[in-house]
């Protein structure tokens, strides 16, 4: 749009809306402060004692809207409604708009006053997300290394990169992002910038799942002189139970710490760690690539202009000697197909 269409006044207005957009809580010109105008005594009585004289309650009564077409007197509010509106004017008011930081009922980081065990934990800020994206995509660090460096779960690192890629693609295509929404959400949530200045690490990265076999106490008589390690304990719980060392998400961290204990210089230990994590990731990637390649080799793609026909090679032998084997290709003969039976879940279980 040619700029000369807009006069400076238009500009002025656009500017003020810019301000509001950046910080929706910023008071616009002429906006009254949002503090409740009730006196403290009334405020107290409305919340603590439900049995209060009705005259006092009238202070909170919702003003009746006059309808031009109706002469019927509108009904009075009942007690519950009076309490509600009283609360809305006093305590409820401060939860109406974002305050720039968390604005929960329980205060601090607790959105549910009755549930002390749930906390609204910080989420990654946009800056933190780009830091992670750059570390993975530009510096080429292994995911495990990024995870260990910033104390962010490996799966989260992968998710951040995955979604950032899509975001970049959108920007490239000129698809509009939900910027106003993202900015507004940022004013409501606790955020972590991953600058390393926070007192706590972002999240634990070495969680291991508690197997249900290990949830009961187990008394295992053994000789006192026996060197009873974690591996032995795992075996005692069950043959197939893995020791924590094998369940670690980043087992290379243990090797790193062992290096440190053995007196290896910190730089060398770190270099070893990077090498090990890179190697493990390469191995996984190679495996996936090999699988994909195998599938691709098994396929012939024929382009007919409108559609691409993908021919997958199969073997008729997979149907078994009677032609009824489950692995057989195609609709099976002589076997009921129960896809429409009652109580069979028809919702897909995975999307690839």
């Amino acid at each position, binding site marked *: 749009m040619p700029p000369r269409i807009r006069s400076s006044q238009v500009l002025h207005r656009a500017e003020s809306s810019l301000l509001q957009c950046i910080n929706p809580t910023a008071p616009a010109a002429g906006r009254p402060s949002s503090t409740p105008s009730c006196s403290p005594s009334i405020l107290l009585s409305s919340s603590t004692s439900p049995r209060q004289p009705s005259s006092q309650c009238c202070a909170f009564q919702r003003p009746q809207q006059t309808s031009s077409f109706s002469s019927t007197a509108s009904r009075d509010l009942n007690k519950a409604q009076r309490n509600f509106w009283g609360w809305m004017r006093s305590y409820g008011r401060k939860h109406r708009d974002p305050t720039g930081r968390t604005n929960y009922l329980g205060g601090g980081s607790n959105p549910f006053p009755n549930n002390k065990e749930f906390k609204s934990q910080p989420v990654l800020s946009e800056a933190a997300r780009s830091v992670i994206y750059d570390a993975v995509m530009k510096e080429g660090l292994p995911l495990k290394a990024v995870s260990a460096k910033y104390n962010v779960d490996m799966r989260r690192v992968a998710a951040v990169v995955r979604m950032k890629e899509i975001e970049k693609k959108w920007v490239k295509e000129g698809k509009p992002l939900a910027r106003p929404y993202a900015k507004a959400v940022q004013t409501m949530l606790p955020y972590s910038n991953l600058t390393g200045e926070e007192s706590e690490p972002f999240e634990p990265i070495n969680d291991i799942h508690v197997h249900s076999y290990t949830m009961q106490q187990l008394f295992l008589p053994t000789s006192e002189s026996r060197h009873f390690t974690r591996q032995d304990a795992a075996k005692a719980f069950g043959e197939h139970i893995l020791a924590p060392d094998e369940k670690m998400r980043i087992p290379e961290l243990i090797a790193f710490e062992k290096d440190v204990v053995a007196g290896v210089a910190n730089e060398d230990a770190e270099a070893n760690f990077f090498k090990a994590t890179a190697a493990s990731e390469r191995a996984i990637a190679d495996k996936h690539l090999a699988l994909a390649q195998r599938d691709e*080799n*098994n*396929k*012939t*793609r*024929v*382009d*007919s*202009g*409108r*559609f*691409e*026909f*993908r*021919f*997958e*090679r*199969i*073997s*008729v032998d997979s*149907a078994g000697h009677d*032609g009824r084997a489950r692995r*057989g*290709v*195609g*609709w099976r*003969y*002589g076997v009921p197909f129960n896809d429409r039976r009652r109580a069979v879940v028809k919702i897909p279980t995975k*999307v*690839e």
Partner: protein
Amino acid sequence: MVVKIRLARFGRTNSPFYNIVVSHARTARNSRPLEVIGTYDPIPKKDSYDTSGKLHKDIKLDITRARYWIGVGAQPTDTAWRLLSMVGIIEPKFRPSTTTTTEKKA
């Protein structure tokens, strides 16, 4: 009796799915065939995250068995002929417009 290579319609209303079968010409369409040599899903599918809008159809086929049955004189129906000709088992019957983009190295 003539042995045919043809499609047997399975699936549901409005969601067809075909077995590519070898069977005697006079038997019912969905009766047990001599052999099921593949499947044909005629509903075009989209790849995840694919924005090009190009759709694909999935076919499974045992090419060796198909060649064998053609070799012993099985007669493909027109539709089956079209599918078999795409992978080069027989010469295309109608218009040779299809081109194989990525042929697997045998």
